[in-house]
């Protein structure tokens, strides 16, 4: 599978179509984000599989924003899975990246990863390698939704209280690009208090994931306290989908319903 990715990247680099390819490499025995540049050996390229498929994924589109800000005239290639593809589409809409400066090289996730992620679309638009896996609905959201209200409230409060306020969830998030962050605003979140006020801290972030969260799950993987953040944001996405017929990152140029001043079509 990786050979077809390497061939494609070599072709893009050799033709001069891209300045560099942002992907993953094995360095010092670890999977690392890496910018492959012209003439470089692609032998170290990997796809982010450690003990399980896709368990060493990184928010590559976030690093692409850094490159784009420093070199806005250059075109870059980037390794994309289904979630990364949704991230790119959303970042174009939010004017953080320019589509004609980005060339995605896509891989479809294997069924094992699609199942683990409960991914609604485990493949990008253009697939260079891999076979389309079956999409999955979120059973974790259903499980918690089926609890009676008091139990559900207790469940979330007992999770939120574990927060050590590392900001890992927003630091790793490819959709967290704001210059000023509400979670670092002194009036909302007091300094020096642990855990941060619950559930305000987590609900503020959840609200800000409306129209942003592309369900990559990296927040949950980065959480030292094991808070099921992905389930929380999946719930946000479920509400968006059922009430506004909107799925973040599915269609390029489609704006979040909460960012529109017009009456929203499809509102039930």
């Amino acid at each position: 599978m990786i050979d077809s990715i390497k061939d494609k990247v070599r072709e893009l680099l050799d033709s001069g179509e891209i300045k560099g390819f942002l992907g993953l490499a094995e360095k010092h025995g670890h999977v690392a984000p890496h910018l492959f540049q012209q003439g470089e050996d692609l032998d170290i390229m990997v796809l982010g599989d450690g003990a399980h498929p896709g368990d060493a994924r990184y928010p590559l589109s976030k690093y692409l924003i850094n490159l784009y800000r420093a070199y806005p005239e250059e075109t870059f290639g980037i390794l994309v899975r289904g979630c990364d593809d949704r991230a790119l589409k959303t970042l174009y809409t939010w004017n953080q990246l320019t589509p004609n400066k980005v060339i995605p090289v896509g891989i479809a996730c294997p069924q094992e990863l699609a199942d683990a992620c409960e991914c609604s679309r485990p493949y990008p638009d253009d697939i260079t390698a891999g076979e389309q896996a079956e999409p999955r609905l979120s059973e974790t959201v259903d499980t918690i939704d089926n609890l009676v209200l008091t139990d559900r409230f207790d469940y979330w409060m007992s999770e939120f209280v574990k927060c050590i306020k590392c900001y890992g969830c927003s630091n790793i998030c490819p959709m967290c690009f704001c210059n000023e962050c509400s979670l670092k605003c002194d009036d909302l979140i007091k300094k020096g208090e642990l855990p941060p006020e619950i559930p305000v801290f987590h609900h503020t972030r959840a609200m800000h994931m409306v129209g942003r969260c592309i369900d990559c799950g990296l927040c949950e993987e980065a959480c030292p306290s094991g808070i099921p953040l992905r389930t929380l944001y999946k719930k946000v996405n479920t509400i968006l989908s059922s009430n506004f017929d909107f799925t973040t990152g599915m269609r390029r140029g489609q704006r979040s319903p909460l960012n529109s001043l017009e009456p929203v079509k499809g509102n039930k």
Partner: protein
Amino acid sequence: MDYRTVLTTCTYCGCGCNFFLEVLDGDPIGTIPCKTSPVNEGKLCIKGWNVHEFIRNDKRLKQPMIRKDGHLTEVSWDEALAYTAQRLKDIKAQDGPDAIGFLTSAKVTNEENYLLQKFARAAINTNNVDHCARL
């Protein structure tokens, strides 16, 4: 264009979390927790997440310093180590080994802490060893 992800170990505490420093044209612009590290498995605390910030601080010491004529002056490691060794010998000869104490650090490894207490007891002959976590 020089974009690198440089694998390194957090200096904040003795846990030894691994991360990559995201370095663009020589400038550290981000910290990326290493997902394949058996120590931190892609997670970091708030201090680790901000390592790229503090290493750029102007006040960070990058060279050893010796106070000369009342002013802290940057010196080479050879000069600093030779000076320290000589002063330790002088103090021990004049006032005895218990005139010297050693403070170890939570920011270094277990092995480095072991070495320092070994040096205190075996080379200097004092049990005056303490730790920054008790200060």
